[in-house]
């Protein structure tokens, strides 16, 4: 970016524009561990400031990269071509919580967990619950269409968006969607923007759907001998019309990783754990919890237990949450994938993954939202061994091919960003990519918004 562009930005943001190397370094990363230095960082407070920034960018030809909390796993907020990072963290007001219509209107920088807490105080529920909910922002969740543990019953971020306000790549401020339960006037631009990773527009306000807070919940932990057995239990329960609000699976390595730090005993033969939560009115929770326990036993669980109270539930969830940090024991560098397969194919996917690990001599830890068919495949490498890194990269491609072959998708909730961009065409095909590119041109003709994401200039991996 040239001096003229910087001083024009300074006229908009004043002290809220940062250009020192130190400030720029602090916005060069996200949770992928990759780094790209922006030319400047700005903290907008209003949609108008965002709009004026994008207009300037069109005049001067610099990239604009929106960023929430920088907690993404696919590189969506990384300024890969420099430019200005627009950090929405100071646009963090909850503008309204409408208890008559069950609607919340928020600015993009509101922390997801904060919104959940605020609506909970009014007996309401905003279901999306990515693991980073204590720090990730609603804006980032919308841009990446974040999911979470309870997606199996309640869906993902896109299922709770009624309308948006966003600045397009042209600098125009567009309002999409409705404030009502339904609405079918014209194309669904709201859903167009959700999951677009800041490449079509920068979200400046969101109208979100809320639902009543479930009155009670029960949590069940079941251990199985193998992941395949656990996966068959998941598919079996889905077929039996049991709908838990969470259904988390941990494979043998994940179970071994938490074994020593867990506050509860893990049976010796356990090669897989399923953590299942049901919620709703107390009477139906009791019935469904019984059904879940019964089904787990029928599918060969070696041990099934139910938390007696909320403290017990918390202990069980602690087990699940401690996996992600503790798997670093296996190896320091984590290659984190986020595939989804139809639930009936889960067992097949797990067999494939264990075969892949031994065939390529890699350590792979699998856990995730099995109820959605969503597995976080974590290939753990030392980071120092070049050959191991190449084997891991090959394994990633194999995992993706198998996923698509089974009728699945290569990213359930992390987005494409830069991490999955080489594989976009593998899943959506050349026509799919072409239609997406045409849409991109329509929303952002000069390629100002978050360039280098989703698409590669040349597709690296063909179908």
């Amino acid at each position, binding site marked *: 970016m040239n001096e003229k562009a910087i001083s024009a930005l300074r006229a908009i943001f004043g002290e809220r524009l*940062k250009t*020192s*190397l*130190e*400030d720029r*370094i*602090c*916005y*060069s*990363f*996200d*949770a992928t*561990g990759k*780094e790209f230095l922006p030319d400047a960082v700005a*903290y907008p407070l209003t949609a108008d400031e965002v709009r004026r920034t994008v207009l300037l960018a069109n005049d001067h030809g610099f990239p604009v990269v929106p960023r929430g*909390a*920088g*907690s993404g796993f696919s590189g969506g907020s990384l300024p890969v071509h420099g430019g200005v990072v627009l*950090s929405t*963290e*100071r646009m*963090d007001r909850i503008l309204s919580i409408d208890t008559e219509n069950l609607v919340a209107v928020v600015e993009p920088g509101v922390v997801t*967990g904060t919104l959940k807490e605020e609506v909970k105080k009014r007996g309401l529920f905003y279901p999306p619950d990515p693991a*980073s909910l*204590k*720090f*990730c922002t609603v804006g980032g969740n919308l841009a990446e269409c974040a999911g979470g543990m309870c997606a199996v019953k309640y869906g993902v971020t896109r299922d709770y968006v009624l309308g948006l306000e966003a600045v397009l790549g042209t600098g125009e401020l567009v309002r999409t969607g409705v404030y009502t339960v339904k609405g079918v006037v014209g194309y669904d631009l709201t859903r167009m923007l959700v999951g677009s990773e800041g490449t079509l527009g920068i979200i400046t306000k969101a109208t979100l759907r809320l639902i009543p807070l479930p009155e009670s919940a029960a949590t069940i932990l079941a251990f199985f001998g193998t992941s395949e057995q656990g996966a068959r239990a998941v598919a079996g329960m889905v077929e039996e019309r049991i709908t838990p609000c969470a259904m988390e699976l941990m494979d043998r390595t994940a179970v071994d990783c938490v074994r020593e730090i867990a506050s509860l005993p893990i049976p010796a033969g356990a090669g897989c754990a399923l953590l299942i939560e049901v919620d709703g009115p107390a009477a139906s929770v009791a019935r469904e919890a019984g059904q879940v326990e019964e089904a787990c036993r029928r599918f060969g669980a070696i041990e099934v237990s139910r938390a007696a109270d909320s403290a017990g539930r918390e202990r069980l969830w602690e087990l699940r949450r401690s996996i*992600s*940090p503790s798997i*670093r024991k296996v190896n*320091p560098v*984590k290659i984190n994938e986020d595939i989804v397969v139809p639930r009936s194919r889960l067992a097949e996917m797990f067999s494939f993954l264990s075969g892949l690990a031994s065939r390529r001599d890699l350590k792979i830890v699998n856990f995730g939202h099995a109820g959605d068919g969503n597995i976080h495949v974590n290939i753990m490498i030392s980071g120092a061994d070049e050959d191991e890194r190449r084997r891991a990269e090959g394994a990633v491609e194999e995992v993706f091919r198998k996923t698509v072959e089974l009728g699945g998708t290569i990213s359930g909730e992390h987005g494409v960003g830069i991490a999955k961009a080489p594989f976009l065409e593998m899943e959506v095909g050349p026509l799919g990519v072409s239609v997406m590119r045409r849409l991109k041109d329509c929303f952002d003709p000069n390629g100002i918004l978050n360039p280098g994401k989703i698409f590669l200039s040349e597709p690296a991996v063909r179908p």
Partner: protein
Amino acid sequence: MSDDGLRALTGACAKCGTCRTVCTLYPERKAEISVARGKIALVEAALSGRDENAEAMQEALTDCLLCGRCERACPNHVLVEEIIMKGRADAARKAGIPAWKRVLFGGVMPSSGKRDAARGLAAAAQNLLLKKIPTGSGLHYRFPDAFGFSGRTVPKLPEKGFVASLAPGEASAGDVMLFVGCVFDHVFPAVGRASYDSMKASGRAIAVFRDAACCGLPAMVSGDWESARRCAEENVRRLLAAEPERIVFPCGSCLLMFKRNMLALIPEKHPLREDAVRVSNLCGDYASFILETGVVSRLPDPPAEGKAGEICYHDPCHLSGTLGKGSEAREVLRGAVGDAFAEIPGADVCCGYGGTFNVRDYPTSSRIGENRISIAARGGARVVSTACSGCILQLRDMAARTRPSMRVVHIAELVAGALGGR
């Protein structure tokens, strides 16, 4: 930047963002540069030579309270405090340390005699220059606006420090050593006295560590590891010569220095390493001593007329957080004041003092601190008790500024009161 083990420490950070949820400063700054992962990214950039601006690095790394909340929340157990202190030390080597700090850390702090003299001078000066304001915790002085300290108040310095006020031969022998700390000796000698008196109730012989050097924390967090190390070495030598069975600290920050930071100052291969580890293992907090020696069980029943819930406890970050000694102080409080003690929300949120942080950004420091006082008041408290010299300095100033009737005390003062008053 020289490695000094830093690469291994910073490499553990996954940049996940958990530190944003607990950082005391983040709600004030709303910028990534204020939180641990931002600062770690800066240290990494300095290590790899991508950022060689030592002044800017010093500025960024100094903007931190070292409350350690990020370190405790971190899923990867990244040692953030060590990274920041080492980063500050490196930046200080290149960018320098202000002259007044060099004189204070290198010249005054290691010597108890010079600290005495400095207190005398300062006491005379404040009487002449500053405006008096009475508070629930004693007389404070307010800086005139012309000094540019945004209404800062300071406690009236005493004529004599606690150690100087001891009779010759008093508290000179005993297998339990009391490490009073500079602030409880020279600024709030009543806390030193209350600690000593209440510890005597254990029936053990208590010796006050008279020729203590400063614990070294102010120097260490300012990046002056040389001066901090000199303090640590002096203390280790002098303490071992006294052959104590245990060493008791009324101040959580001094204790943190001895339990943890000292071992970074005196690393493996240092000639005093073994001695330092031995000393470190003898050190413990005031509340644990009071509990273990049965002082609490010997206290008379709290008076029935005590108002329920009028005394709260503020968790010092270093003591309750880093060292995990939060429940002991509460048990002591319940023994000393009974139902008058009640929890307030956010008792474990940092007071915003941060030592040098309070000097470099008083407006932010006081915003954070005043909030602690107003939350305590809203919870019905009339007394905030705590167990760290930094928290007391900060909270007494904050109370003097916004709510002079609020008393801020050390738990030892409540224990001594319970022993003597009833």
